[in-house]
């Protein structure tokens, strides 16, 4: 029934290593049968054993209380079994050995060996995860922080069920790696993902957190909310530094240098560009002392993506978007706006009551001019005094551009369109602001938005 090892070696099957364990098992059966290494009866025998084992797992899953279960649950259990067995067969490193094992050993034995491997991999993944948590980057990027937190990757370890759902990844992973982990599932995926993330952390850890922060600010001032890969940005910048013969650790390249680089690189075709970037990568590895190791290999593995980005940017004349110049956000002139002290509540109520009974808009305006002394009171009044559109516009006319910018910062009308739940008064005020800006001259609006960008975020 089973072939000898010599016969198996003669018909070597090549199965890619990066195949998921579940797919590996299926491919092994299919290829083994196609190559004549497994006979129809031996395939049937393996399937029947799988079925018997599934029945056993189903009984265990139901704790003997129910003889039937949903087809989806049974399929998931079967996938889990196949995954576990595939993990062991793949670990043999040779498809010939794997087929020989399939034909000689019984399915529960293969499963048991796979299950032990899962336990080992789980422990290894846990160790890498703890290392990542210890050496995590100090960054404002939300997805990075959320993914390495206990609610992200940390969720995997308490919720993973190796006995029934070995092929599932029970964790919330939003942070995208520079070299994404494709094809793998279950504990294999987590282990590889964590290993890659640890390498990315190790690389970024060689640069100062401040340099990375400035670099990412140069990429986009709102980078904390973006789904970006930090390692890719840092490596790209390091390559740029190397190309212009600057210190790699500075991650600093000026816009003028990017322009010069653009003129130089645009003459190179894709193979020449690849060569230049590969040489720059070697210099980066030398300077960071990472050549030859796992980290060096990871850097080399990441280069094709970067070459494509650079090549595309050269075609579009947007190299400055790939080779980013760092930006210190605190160096930008900033305006600190103080809303002033609010008047006493009693006085404010009296003012509102009087405004409500006031008949003529001119009187209201006069009243506001005389009584209101702070921006904070004026802001409250716009929502409390039931003013008509024209009256609101007249009040806004009293304000300077900075005050208007401060109002927009506190009541960002653009967010109205995002379906955010807001009180009716707030929605009305935002609507007024939008209408008011629409009727202003374009130059003034531009000026107001420039001021808006310079306004410092309020604390608390």
């Amino acid at each position, binding site marked *: 029934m089973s072939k000898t090892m010599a016969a198996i070696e003669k018909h070597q099957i090549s199965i890619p290593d990066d195949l998921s364990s579940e797919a590996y098992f299926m491919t092994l059966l299919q290829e083994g049968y196609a190559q004549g290494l497994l006979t129809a009866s031996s395939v049937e025998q393996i399937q*029947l054993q*799988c079925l018997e084992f599934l029945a056993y797992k189903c009984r265990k899953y139901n704790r003997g209380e129910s003889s*039937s279960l949903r*087809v989806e649950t*049974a*399929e998931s259990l079967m996938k889990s079994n*196949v995954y576990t067995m595939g993990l062991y067969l793949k670990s043999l490193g040779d498809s010939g050995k794997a087929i020989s094992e399939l034909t000689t050993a019984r399915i529960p034995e293969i499963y048991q060996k796979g299950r032990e491997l899962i336990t080992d991999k789980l422990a290894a993944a846990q160790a890498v995860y703890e290392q990542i948590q210890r050496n995590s980057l100090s960054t404002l990027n939300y997805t990075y922080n959320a993914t390495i937190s206990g609610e992200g990757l940390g969720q995997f370890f308490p919720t993973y069920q190796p006995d029934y759902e070995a092929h599932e990844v029970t964790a919330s992973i939003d942070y995208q790696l520079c070299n994404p982990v494709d094809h793998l599932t279950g504990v294999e995926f987590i282990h590889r993902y964590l290993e890659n993330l640890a390498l990315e952390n190790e690389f970024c850890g060689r640069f100062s957190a401040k340099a990375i922060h400035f670099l990412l600010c140069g990429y986009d001032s709102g980078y904390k909310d973006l789904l970006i890969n930090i390692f890719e940005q840092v490596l790209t910048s390091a390559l740029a530094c190397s190309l212009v013969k600057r210190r790699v650790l500075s991650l600093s390249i000026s816009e003028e240098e990017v322009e010069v680089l653009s003129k130089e690189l645009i003459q190179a075709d894709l193979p020449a560009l690849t060569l230049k970037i590969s040489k720059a990568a070697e210099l980066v590895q030398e300077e960071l002392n990472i050549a030859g190791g796992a980290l060096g290999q990871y850097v080399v593995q990441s280069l094709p993506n970067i070459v494509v980005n650079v090549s595309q940017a050269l075609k579009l004349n947007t190299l400055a978007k790939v080779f980013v110049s760092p930006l210190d956000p605190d160096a930008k002139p900033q305006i600190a706006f103080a809303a002033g002290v609010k008047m006493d509540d009693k006085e404010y109520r009296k003012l509102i009551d009087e405004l409500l009974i006031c008949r003529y808009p001119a009187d209201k305006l006069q009243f506001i001019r005389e009584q209101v002394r702070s921006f904070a009171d004026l802001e409250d009044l716009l929502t409390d005094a039931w003013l008509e559109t024209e009256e609101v516009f007249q009040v806004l006319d009293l304000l300077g551009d900075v005050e208007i910018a401060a109002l927009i910062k506190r009541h960002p009308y653009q967010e109205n369109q995002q379906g955010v739940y807001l009180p009716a008064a707030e929605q009305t005020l935002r609507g007024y602001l939008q209408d008011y800006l629409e009727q202003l001259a374009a130059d003034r609006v531009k000026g107001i938005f420039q001021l808006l960008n310079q306004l410092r975020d309020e604390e608390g």
Partner: protein
Amino acid sequence: MALEIMHLSTSLIQKQAVMEIEKCNEFSAQFGLTLSHAQAIELVETRAQALRGNGRIEFGGGVIQRIIREFCHSPYISSYNYEETLQELVEMFYYYKNETLDLLSDDELIQFMRTPFNGVCQGSLELLAGRELYNLASNLRFGYAPNYWEDPAEDEEEDEDEEDNADEQNHGGY
């Protein structure tokens, strides 16, 4: 892969199930109830259809034996309706296994079927499925106790009482 394997095994599972049903004849014969080989095959076929229809899979003999053992001494089952009743009960069982979200074990569900069948339903399979098991399933889904029963008649009485009280208060006010 999973489904392919399941197809392979169907004939084996069915053969085993027929044998197990025929074995039950020894027990049920004391109540004058037996199934022929053909009837056993048909019953297993019904089970297979019910499983397919309800998206479930079962290994081994399944629950038919247990249903026979629990129902064969029912006063509402005779040799005239034995086979049909068993078929209906098997279909009902798998349907309500899904509807009760697998929260009950096989034995618990069969017990819940047997008690009202021999009691309030007086052998009516329609009442058993449409009222008792329906109520059981909705109770489990909404987090009530399995036996919880909301009597519409009581609600109506309560409403009437509330109306009377309100009227009295209104009259008192005048």
